[in-house]
């Protein structure tokens, strides 16, 4: 069996079809188990990945109809890169969600939790977005405690 010095990467391209994010989580689960992440950590990455995927599905207005995912396996952490070639967005203009306003009817938009979920479930989230599309790079460290 041949093994090269290249970083160990798994790439996955999924079409923009409802529920296709589940295919991404299945792939992620295999990669994370391979890397010996804990079940809780695996669960956290799956949820963050779903959010990044459904954002690309819903908001990107991508013309090529696909979302590009890369799992970069490093010694003690996994990078998950989610990319679309859509319209992009300006992070500055995204309002921070506030539960009080949403529950009491002050804010009619009950949604807006995706980015917060990614950030709380991963160790780092980097967002690059512009007219060429959006790329989100999420990092999960493999710690003993299984907590981010």
């Amino acid at each position, binding site marked *: 069996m041949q093994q090269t010095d290249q970083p160990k990467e798994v790439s996955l391209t999924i079409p923009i079809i*409802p529920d296709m994010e589940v295919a991404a989580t299945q792939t992620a689960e295999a990669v994370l188990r391979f890397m010996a992440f804990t079940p809780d950590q695996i669960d*956290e990455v*799956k*949820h963050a990945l*779903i*959010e990044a995927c459904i954002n690309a599905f819903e908001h990107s207005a991508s013309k090529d109809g696909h979302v590009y995912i890369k799992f970069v396996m490093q010694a003690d952490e996994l990078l998950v890169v989610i990319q679309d070639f859509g319209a992009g967005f300006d992070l500055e203009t995204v309002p921070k969600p506030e539960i009080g306003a*949403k529950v009491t009817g002050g804010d009619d938009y009950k949604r807006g*939790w995706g980015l*917060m979920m990614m950030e709380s479930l991963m160790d780092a989230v980097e967002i690059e977005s512009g007219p060429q599309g959006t790329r989100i790079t999420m990092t999960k460290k493999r710690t003993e405690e299984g907590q981010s």
Partner: protein
Amino acid sequence: MINQFAITTQKDPQGRFAVIHTDGYINNLAGERIGEAASLLMAEGYSRLIINLEKSTVINSIGISILIEIIEKMQEIHGVLAFCNLTKTIHKTFTIMGLTQYAALYENEAQAIRGVLET
């Protein structure tokens, strides 16, 4: 389709509370079905609802936003909504969102029933 979501509803014989059991990935469509089940129960007069998430280990933020709508409707009728049997990740997510200020999270259904009856 990839997501086979199922819901079952259980009513307290004395009419004090009802429990919604979910089974499967809670995405937008599944969230809407939970919302409809909750609306139906509220229309029947139930103001204490429990959502048992034991068989739902994955939820997305669209699904969660529909749960927030249920909480909002519950607040309007001064009812109470509680969740039980959450995975660690879902528990963490609900907590970080601040959802726990408006809906209690219980370890299991028995505790949730005790909890909503005390409210």
